[in-house]
């Protein structure tokens, strides 16, 4: 079998005495849409932050296309406090800042939309192109990078066209309605040229109609940009509809994983999550 795009090995994230994510191992294969679900506070976003370099995991390793991008083991005071398993299995510290992880091809969106609010839609997306542009501060200030700048602008125009945002390109990001802000955030993530897209609750705050459209949109993204998608979501109908596989977290522990059907009928999941989610399904 080919190497997984993303593989988490025994990732544990402990804040002081609180274990937010415990011994999480999972993999996301090329071209898959995989969902990470779980009740509030289960540690889903923490897991995302461990992958993207925002947090340094207490123990464990993250591999991207077979290459370790994050690795950590308990050090200093944490050695005595550590409550997890697999102590001694990892002995390296690999830590990239989030920008370097983005550069390798992992793009993400945020649970509470984080756009550059005072900038226009066009500028928001254009900023994502900065990291791969061949220029330095002198060539940029003296406009010697005109060709590069034009290429960046053309790419952004194409992307906005494809995302149906072109007519809004000069609007200030904060003036967009909520649903479009989410679309813009995804477009901005795509502009970094990722091979893996992490979506943190893309359907949060959307009504059922919008959620359905989003489901189709995410599937389109996968086809069009040859993406692998890993998402956190609370809307069960969305998750069950588009995911190839589902992982379920509860209090930081992985309690079940498999196809949507398998997860839905797993008694542990029903007990931890779907049992109470009958009322709160949307």
């Amino acid at each position, binding site marked *: 079998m080919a190497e997984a795009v993303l593989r988490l090995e025994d990732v544990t994230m402990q804040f002081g005495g609180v274990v937010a994510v415990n011994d999480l191992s999972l993999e996301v294969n090329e071209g898959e849409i995989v969902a990470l679900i779980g009740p509030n506070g289960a540690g889903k976003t923490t897991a995302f932050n461990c992958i993207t370099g925002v947090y340094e995991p207490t123990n464990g390793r993250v591999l991207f296309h077979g290459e370790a991008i994050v690795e950590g083991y308990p050090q200093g005071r944490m050695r005595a406090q550590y409550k997890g398993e697999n102590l001694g299995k990892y002995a390296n510290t690999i830590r990239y800042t989030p920008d370097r992880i*983005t550069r390798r091809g992992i793009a993400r969106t945020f649970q509470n939309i984080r756009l550059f609010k005072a900038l226009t839609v066009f500028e928001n997306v254009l900023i994502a192109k900065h990291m791969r542009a061949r220029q330095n501060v002198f060539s940029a200030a003296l*406009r010697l990078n005109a060709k590069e700048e034009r290429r960046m602008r053309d790419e952004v125009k194409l992307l906005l066209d494809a995302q149906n945002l072109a007519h809004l390109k000069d609007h200030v990001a904060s003036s967009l309605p909520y649903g479009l802000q989410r679309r813009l955030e995804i477009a901005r993530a795509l502009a970094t040229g990722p091979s893996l897209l992490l979506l943190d609750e893309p359907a949060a705050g959307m009504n059922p109609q919008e959620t359905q459209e989003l489901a189709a949109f995410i599937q389109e993204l996968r086809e069009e940009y040859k993406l692998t998608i890993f998402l956190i979501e609370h809307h069960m109908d969305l998750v069950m509809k588009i995911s190839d596989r589902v992982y379920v977290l509860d209090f930081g522990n992985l309690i079940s994983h498999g196809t949507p059907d398998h997860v839905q009928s797993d008694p542990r999941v029903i007990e931890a999550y779907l049992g109470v989610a009958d009322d709160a399904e949307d």
Partner: protein
Amino acid sequence: MTKKTHRLTAAALLALMFAMIIVLEQIIKPTDAAAMLLTVLKKSSVYALVAVSMNLLNGFTGLFSLGQAGFMLLGAYTYAIFTIPLADREFVYQYYDCVVHFSFPEALGSIMGGFGALLGVALAVILAGLVAAAAAWLIGLPVLRLKSDYLAIATLGFAEIIRAVFQWGKLGPVTNAANPLKNYVRLNFFRLSIGDTTINLSAFASVMMATLCIGAIVLLVNSSYGRAFKAIREDEIAAEAMGLNLYRLKQLAFCISSFFAGIGGAMLAMFANTVQANNFKAAMTYEILLIVVLGGIGSISGSCISALLFIFSSEWWLRGLDSGRFLGIAAPSVFRNGFRLVVFSLIIMAVVLFFRRGIMGDKELPYAAGRLWGRLRAFLAKADRKAGEPNG
């Protein structure tokens, strides 16, 4: 209007401004009351540049730094030390043995004459900026890990340390310790002698230098790097997730801002008769911060306009309030020393109350002018309709 006509308009306006300054400089004699206009113009060009450089950091990158006076000091000293004529060094460094035996204008002037001297001055100014930028790089290593208020306190502290170090007796052979540096190349250096007539270009030179530097900052702000700075201001976490290297970009903004503050310091040295570390107090940084806030955080033209208004009011228009006679009213018992500051503070309060986000907000002059023009046209059209109604 298209982009091209915008540019042409801007260039024409700038050329007109420079022509006016040159003409004024020839007409106004140093003894005239209007000579104050030129003095104030020179000083405000310095403050405009430093305010814009501070705005690059505080307004565009979102780093609240208060080190401007320290970097100006570095620039002023570097410039002065490298332009004092060798023959005058013994006189200037009267208590120390000067160890720097090099003057850019002299060294190049001896090879290339007048043009060489000018080139030497330019090199000294650039060196002033580079020294300030290098210091900023070093200070930035520990300090840029801090955020908001903490960054402000740390940079303010470093500026004060720089000021103290430059007054240290052990450094006397280089900095002349607490004694002033003088006899370096000043603004009156900029003049053209053709036969008997002398064309005075000191105000022109000062405004020109400020314009070039501010132009460079404008180009930077509108480039890909400027966008990256704004992204950091808007949301650091999102900026980092978009692949922007926060630390390197912050360091870059800090160094560039300090580079231009250093050049501003060199220009201030040229404007004044002497350079003395004691003059670069934190109060100077606060003045510049005030200019930035009044002009609008994130607006370059706002900083320029506000620097002009600030210096013109504090140095010229409101002078009468301190010396007994203001707007033709003679009231020596009220208009006494210090009254000017009372009025000045009231004006500032009024500006802050009525223009919450500064004079320009975060908009630039062309935008504001466009809106004003639009309103004027709407007003004229309305007046037109009114005039037409009774007949029709």
